[in-house]
Each structure stands twice: as C-alpha cells, then as structure tokens.
C-alpha cells in the first residue's frame, strides 16, 4: 500500500512537471526514471505511468491556456484557442471546464478500457502469429505515416532503429549480427542512452533558455453554458483515435478540435472537445499495449521495455488482470485530485514550476547521464553506453528540430519484431 502511494505520488508529481514544461514529455520522464523503475514490481510501473500520463494531460492544458505554449503536444488546440480567450479574462473558466472534461472523459475512457481488456484479452491471446505479424506491421507503418517527420524520414529512422537494435547476439537466431563475439559491441547497443541522447537531453536543454509569462487569472462566475455535446464528441473521437500508433491521443486532440470548429467556431467548445479527446485517447492508448503487447507511442514503448525486462511481453495483460481493481481506484482518485489541483491551483503550480525550470533541467540532465552510466556498469556495457550517449547527444542537439521517436520505438520493439518474424518464418516458410 505504501509502495503504491509512493509510486503514485511520484508519477503524479513528475507528470505535472512533464505537462507544464515543453521539451519534457511523458516518454522522457519514463526514460529518466527507468533506473529506478527497472527493479520495481510491474504493477508499480503501471501505477507510475498512469500517474504521469494523466497529470501531464491536465497540466499540459493549464500551461497552454495560461501561456499560449502547449506543455504537451496534445494541448496545441488549447494553446491556439484557449490562450486568446484567457487573455480576454476567461482563463479561470477555461481552467475549470478543461479540468472538468478531462475528469469526465479520462475516467469514462479508463473504465471502458478496463471493460474491453478484461473481456477481450482471451481473444487477443488466441491470435495466431500471422495476425500478430500483421498487427505489428500495421503499427510500424502507422508510426511511419503519422509521426512528426516526413514519411521517408520516418522510414529511414525506423530502419536505423532496427539496425542499431540488431547489433550483437540474437537469441532467436542464435547468431551474431554485424559484429562477432569478441567485439566490444557483442552485447548489443542499449536503447536507453540512445533515447537519452536523441530525445531527452535536447528536450531538457531547451528548458535552459525557456522564458514564459503566465496570464493572471481572476475568479469569475462560472458560465452556465453546456458543453456536453462537445465533450462527448471529443471524447469519442479521442478514444478511437487514441489507438492509432504514432500520434495516438495527439491525433485525437487535433482531429476533435477541427471537427468541433467545423460544427461551431466557439473557442470554449473547441478547447473542451480537444481536452476531452486527449484524455480519452491517453487511456485508449493503453489498449494495444495491454491486450496485444504492442506499444504505440514512445512512452508506451518505454513502459513495454520496463515490464518485459522481467516478463514475457504477453504477461503485461496478466499483470493488468491481477491488479485492475487497484488501478481503477487509483485512476479515479488521482483524476479527482488533479481536477481540483488544475482548476484551483493550476496557475500557482505552473508559476512555481516555471521558476524552477532551470534547476529541473540541470537535474534531469545529470540524472540522464548517471542512470545511463549506472545501468551500463551493471550490464557490463559501460563503455558502449557512454559512447552511445555521447554520439546520440551530439546528433540530437545538432538535429534538434527532428523527431527521433521512431528510432527509439524500433530499438525497443525490435526484439518483439525479430521474435515475431522468426516465428512466422519457421511456421510459414
């Protein structure tokens, strides 16, 4: 119980920071905490992840409304539509309605997810390897199509990730690829320093030059306007599109905002629809991971890596089945808590985090180097890890505008891809 509280609180706290600070996403936070999470019980990893995921959604919209800069990419519509409205004095009302709809759609989405997972996992486990192969291929193609870069670039990055991950000894094929047994790369190239260098450190370094001005919010009587149609529409769109690999809840948020704008060009309703979508999508994003063992975003893939470090990928669903009542209770409690925090004290919390953004950036960078070194030392790959960190950091800083998540995704997923390919080749060729 105490452990659950600790992991839950840490997840919520770090998720708030991830939501507020642009450049520090949920995937980066999971990677930074991976050293601590690697030896943890799998249900605690899930608790921690849910905490980060949910709180980043709440506070991503708070930052977007109050500063015009989305802390989380899925809050872009809130920045586009909500910030101008906040400048006209509607900030407090917007904080209330976004928090309220985050609460409603988040809880509804999660309960729906649990129902689908509990009733559908038996079917998911019975899928033959050929169906699994097609689903996996679909996920990879989807990431290629819907990630931030051009399609060609995404394809190249996915291939690069696959090549990096294939270096070393393959358990499935029982042979070495690209190197021989005496090479210093015979144990392969670990994914963590690559992710730190390409994504985490450049993102965190951008915080060092971050300056932001918060709009002052004043208490205003809440509007009696109903937002139910917008909230429900957005929630449905977000829940469905949240399962799309690559952009997931970000896609849901953008599409919901465009649909709502087409129906009625009302700033508050567009913001409600997009926030409802991104909270619902953040829950449905878990469906492929838990039911099929296929992560669809970078943060999902880090969770996948942490959970499968101790288990076969199929037992993510077993872990969920064993602990879902606790996860549901935890989810409801933190949503209620975050609703109050975001609505009542969102501005104050944002202000505090911005004041300490530089210190947090320095801590995050230190942690990234330390965790990479520590894990490298304990797996006998210290020199490889440090070299990978150095090279990937140089590349990440040089090409800061590029999205390297396909590389990281493929590096983490490659063992599963290789296993599926190996099984399929034995069975069908």
């Amino acid at each position, binding site marked *: 119980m105490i452990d659950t509280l600790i992991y839950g609180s840490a997840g919520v706290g770090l998720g708030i920071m991830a939501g507020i600070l642009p450049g520090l996403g949920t995937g980066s936070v999971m990677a930074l905490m991976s050293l601590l999470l690697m030896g943890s019980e799998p249900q605690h990893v899930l608790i921690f992840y849910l905490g980060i995921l949910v709180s980043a959604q709440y506070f991503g919209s708070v930052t977007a409304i109050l500063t015009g800069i989305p802390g989380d990419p899925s809050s872009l519509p809130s920045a586009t539509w909500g910030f101008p409205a906040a400048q006209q004095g509607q900030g407090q009302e917007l904080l209330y309605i976004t928090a309220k709809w985050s609460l409603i759609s988040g809880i509804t989405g999660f309960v729906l997810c649990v129902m689908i997972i509990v009733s559908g996992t038996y079917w998911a*486990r*019975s*899928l*033959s*390897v050929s169906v*699994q192969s097609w689903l996996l291929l679909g996920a990879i193609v989807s990431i290629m199509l819907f990630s931030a870069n051009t399609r060609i670039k995404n394809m190249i990055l996915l291939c690069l990730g696959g090549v990096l991950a294939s270096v*070393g*000894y393959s*358990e*499935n094929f*029982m*042979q*070495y690829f690209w190197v021989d*047994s005496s090479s210093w790369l*015979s*144990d*392969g190239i670990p994914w963590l320093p690559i992710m730190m260098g390409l994504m985490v450190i450049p993102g965190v370094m951008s915080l060092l030059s971050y300056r932001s001005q918060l709009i002052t919010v004043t208490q205003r009587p809440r509007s009696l306007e109903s937002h139910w149609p917008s909230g429900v529409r957005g929630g449905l769109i977000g829940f469905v599109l949240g399962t799309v690999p690559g952009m997931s809840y970000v896609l849901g948020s953008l599409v919901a905002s465009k649909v709502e704008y087409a129906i009625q060009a009302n700033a508050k309703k567009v913001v409600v629809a997009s926030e409802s979508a991104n909270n619902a999508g953040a829950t449905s994003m878990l469906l492929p991971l838990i039911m099929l063992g296929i992560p669809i975003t970078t943060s999902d893939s880090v969770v996948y890596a942490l959970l*499968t*470090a*101790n*288990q*076969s990928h*199929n*037992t993510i669903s077993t872990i969920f089945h064993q602990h879902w009542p606790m996860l549901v209770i935890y989810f409801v409690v933190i949503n209620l808590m975050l609703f109050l925090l975001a609505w009542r004290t969102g501005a104050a919390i944002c202000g505090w985090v911005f004041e300490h953004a530089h210190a947090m950036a320095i801590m995050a960078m230190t942690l990234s180097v330390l965790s990479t070194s520590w894990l490298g030392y*304990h*797996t*006998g790959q210290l020199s490889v890890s440090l070299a990978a960190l150095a090279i990937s950091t140089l590349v990440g800083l040089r090409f800061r505008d590029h999205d390297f998540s396909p590389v990281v995704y493929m590096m983490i997923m490659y063992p599963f891809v290789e*296993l599926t390919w190996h*099984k399929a080749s*034995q*069975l069908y060729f």
Partner: protein
Amino acid sequence: MKRLFVALFAAMAASLTWAQSITVMRIGAPGANSDFYATVVGTHLQSRGWKTKTTSFLDCKGAEKWVRDNPREPVIYVTWADDFVLPSIDPTHPRSCSGLTLDRDSLVTPIVKSYHMICSRNPVTTQAFLQHRDAKIGSWNHPVQMRIVRDTLKDLDLQQTRLISFARGADMLQALVSNDIDYMVVSSENLVRNIGGQCFLTMAPRGQAAVMSDFRTNSTQTSIESLVQRPTWVGTGLIPLYVAYNVDINQLRKDVVDIMSTSIEFQNLWSSSTVKSGVMTGITPEQQWQEFDRFLSQMKRQ
C-alpha cells in the same frame, strides 16, 4: 550497557568485514529462468552473511571474459547442464563457452532435475500424436535440446513433424495458446496445465514415468521406452545448475541448498509444480556429481 553496545557494534562491523564476498553473475536475457534463479540466490545469500555484488551478461561470452579477467574472484552463476555439453558438440556455436568449466569443486548444486515431456493443449493420446503426421512441435532453441527432440522424433518415425524453436518458454506457451504449434517439449507440466493443457509422453525411463507424473491428479504419462525399443535418448531433461569458482564450496553449497529448501520464492515455484522439489538437494554432493556426470557422459557419447 554502553560497553555492551560498543562491543556489539564492533562485532557486527567485524563480521561485515569478514563476510565472504561473492559476485552473483546473471547470464542470459533479462527475465529468463536463469535470471530468476540468480536473483533469488543473490538476495538470500546476503541474509546468510555473504557480501554480494551482481553483474549481468546477455550471453556466456561476456561471462567467460569476466571469469578470464578475474581469475581469483569468487563468483556464482546459473547455467544449464546442456551448456557444458555444447563445446564438445559444436565448439564454434555462440553459446559454446569452454572458458566456463564444471567439475566436482565448482558444481554447487543442480537446482532441480526434471524429464522432458511432450505436451499439448488439446486432449491428445499418445496414439493420436504418433499418427499426427504434419504437426508442429515447439522446443527451446538450445542446440542440445533441439538435437534431443529431432532424434526422438526420428525414433518415433515422425520426421515430417516440423520443429519450431523458441528462445523463451513464455513465447512457446503463447504459441501453444494461439495454436501456432500443436505440441511443445517442456520439463514442467505445470506450465502447460496453467494454460489448460497436459503432457502425455515423457523421456523418463519406464519405471519412473508414473512416479514423475503429476502427483496431484495421479495421471500417468507414457515413457519413450514403452514406444521405442532402444530410444536414442532416455532420461533427458533440463537441469539448471549453480556453479561457483574461488569460494568455500562446502559452505556455499550448504547455504544454497538451504535457500532452495526454505526460501519463499522456491517454495512458490515448486509448491504447484510436478517436479519433486529438492530432488537434487536431498542427496549428497558426491551423489549429485555422479548423477550429473552420468548425464554429461550420456550426452557426449551421442
């Protein structure tokens, strides 16, 4: 009283400095069985006065290099009996690490002894299995294991049966669940029972087949010896081992056997398993070595 406390703390500090130090080496992919065995023993050795530190390698090549670079360091690791046969069968194989040696003074204890079984999720009789000509059967992808399975299929005149290899048992179980394979070769029937299957054919010698079957349901399995007059392989199974170098082997053996007999992790593992827990711990180290030496000799003869 103050002097008593000082003396107590001094004794504790002294015991810490005099505590035997040992490196617990984890070899293999994270989450594999050997990882579990190494972690459990490493954790419990600390409570028995050992000062432990852990190091991990994805395969035995890294472990071999570590042992070569640290020839006098006390170390304990988990491996499979098959790994000590491989250098004589295929010295160039990536899993073939002749730098990791095994003799009476380095064998701490075999963890458990269990016989291979052929299992299925469908209700299958041995007769039906023998008539299933285009089946797919899964096996752990260790070359020695694959060789045993291939030779056994040949003995049973099932050469058309397709052998599908898996690096991890969990993946093989999943393949059985999704009907990608029809049968699997495994050493613990309980793993198959957990997914609604059962085992019907065993590599145990004829007299032992009934003994080694599930003691909860008293079901019996057919021994390979009942089907084939002179099978190539009899009495084979997966034998995980604790191996140690540069350490007081008698003390370590005593502590490891105690851990295997009393720790909650091993009790949970074996309380619902068909494998007789402690079957290798109840006999003397000399007897264990003889049992193991017999197995190695049999494998190398083939």
